[in-house]
């Protein structure tokens, strides 16, 4: 890396006034802003606007007041989709968080074989949700799938045909896909905990368990909040995985909000009501992000801003 042209002048004149040059570089931010406004900000306003219109996805967009909202809010499908979304978010959080913490702590160890484990471990991160969903759909086949392979009859169920089981499968596959990611975050965070804390604890005679609960967990607090935010807010947008795996079925048992929006919009051609669901998704997402930020007791983004 070349720090071009060696500075001939001595120390910089004003260290404190960091980036003040009297020059404005605003124009450099224009291209990024144009892209983001066009396909980020305008759609955000647009989704609210479209929720007050009627549109079939092909013809003209016609303003229609509260029609879409009335139809969405009076539809029992909405509370159902919200309930399913909540279940998926809560259950996958409950499963993934302890698993990821334990695995992250383990993988943070210095032993060589753990580094090797980690290589294999993170493979699910690389696969597309579509590929993962398709794989599990075939692997869970009651006749030619995992139950037959392992010789375990109870594994040969109609996993994706029973509403209760299908929801469980969704939670499991979500976890299969994302536990490696969250373990990776925890692995990084555990390595940042000062060794001296553990040395002190050892001198005080604290055992493994005690160290885990009195040092590791409290030190991971911010990471737990970050990871939980990503898990929960992210679970609002599980679209591809569920769409390919179950398409919302059986009998709408896995029809989460994102899927509900897609189906209303692009399959039933009801873009107005679908946009209303989109607005709800945005609001729930923002609300959850704010909630987790408050849990963190401070500016969560600020702590993420340092370093990276």
């Amino acid at each position, binding site marked *: 890396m*070349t720090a*071009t*042209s060696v500075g001939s*002048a001595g120390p*910089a004149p004003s*260290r404190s006034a960091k*980036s*003040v040059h*009297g020059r*404005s*570089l*605003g124009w*450099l931010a224009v291209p990024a*802003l144009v*892209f983001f406004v*066009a*396909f*980020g900000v305008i*759609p*955000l306003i*647009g*989704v609210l606007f*479209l929720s007050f219109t009627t549109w079939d996805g092909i013809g003209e967009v016609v303003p229609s007041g509260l029609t879409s909202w009335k139809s969405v809010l009076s539809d029992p499908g909405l509370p159902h989709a919200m309930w399913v979304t909540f279940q998926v978010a809560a259950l996958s959080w409950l499963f993934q968080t302890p698993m990821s913490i334990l695995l992250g702590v*383990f*993988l943070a160890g210095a032993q060589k074989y753990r580094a090797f484990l980690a290589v*294999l*471990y993170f493979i699910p991160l690389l696969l*597309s*949700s*579509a*590929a993962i969903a*398709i*794989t599990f759909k075939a692997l869970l086949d009651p006749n030619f*799938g*995992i139950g037959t392979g392992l010789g375990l009859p109870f594994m040969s169920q109609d996993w994706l045909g029973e509403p209760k089981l299908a929801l469980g499968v969704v939670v499991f596959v979500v976890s*299969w896909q994302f*536990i490696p990611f969250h373990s*990776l*975050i925890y692995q*990084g965070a555990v*390595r*940042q905990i000062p060794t001296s804390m553990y040395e002190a604890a050892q001198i005080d005679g604290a055992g*493994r368990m005690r160290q885990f609960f009195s040092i590791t967990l409290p030190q991971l607090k911010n990471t737990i909040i*970050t990871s939980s935010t990503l898990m929960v*807010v992210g679970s609002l*947008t599980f*679209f*591809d995985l569920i769409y*390919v795996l179950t398409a919302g079925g059986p009998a709408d048992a896995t029809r989460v909000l*994102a899927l509900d929006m*897609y189906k209303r919009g692009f399959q039933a051609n009801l873009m107005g009501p679908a946009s209303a669901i*989109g607005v709800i*998704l945005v609001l729930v*997402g*923002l609300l959850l*992000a704010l909630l987790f930020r408050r849990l963190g007791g401070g500016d969560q983004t600020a*702590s*993420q*801003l340092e370093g*990276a």
Partner: protein
Amino acid sequence: MTDTSQKTTRIRSTNWVGGTLSWFWLFIVLLPIYWIVITSIKSQSEYFVTNPFVPSSQPTLDAYRLVIDSGFIRYFFNSVIVTVGAVIPAVLVSFMAAFAIIRSRPHWFLKSANSILLMGLAIPLQATIIPVYLIIIRLHLYDTLLALILPSIAFAIPLSVLVLSNFIRDVPNELFESMRLDGCSEWQTLWRLALPLTRPALVTVTIYNALLIWNGFLLPLVLTQSPNLRVLPLALWTFQGQYGINVPAILAAVLLTALPILALYVVGRRQLLSGLTAGFTK
């Protein structure tokens, strides 16, 4: 991410819980992958009669042949075009914006630009797919690869700006000052100083965005229609719809679509993993 050397003293007794769990979860992770590999080289008839976890006695590449004959080379190039076409501009404009946000004299425009981009981090952008669809139709871009590229660029910008600005902030001010005293313009400083010094971060965000876009499914599903414009995840899904019963072929397709990323993983594991957690870990 720091080195592990400081960690050695910590683990005295064996971590039985973590150890057992890790091996167990490793099994859960690897079993489907092992199954994909061995099933993809079975013949269709063999799939129905052999144990799913026992490798084939007569391995065949028929499944791969079928996949390649079904147009996957074309889909592969579509994916390459979309990924490269979106990631390079996204990283470039994000880098310029990050440089401006960190280096410029305070300005209301940059302040608001920064907060708009930060807001983008908190919002599930997929929820706005319907207006994106409307905009793409109005721009007469529906059913083109450009329709996938433009929103992908936009969606990639917030996190890229965040990560890159963190790195540019760490470049010592003295270096900028000396560039300035040498009479370099900010534009030259951007390319000759900031760019080489933030290279690791640029690699990181490039990889992160490339992975997301390569694996993206919703945008192609909504914004394209023609079979010859399919990108890999969408092709995989339609292929599964067509050849539902031919499991070896479907799994061969799964493996082929993941292969470029797996190859990349072998070559640049460290960058890839740090790319994945960019912005989420300190």
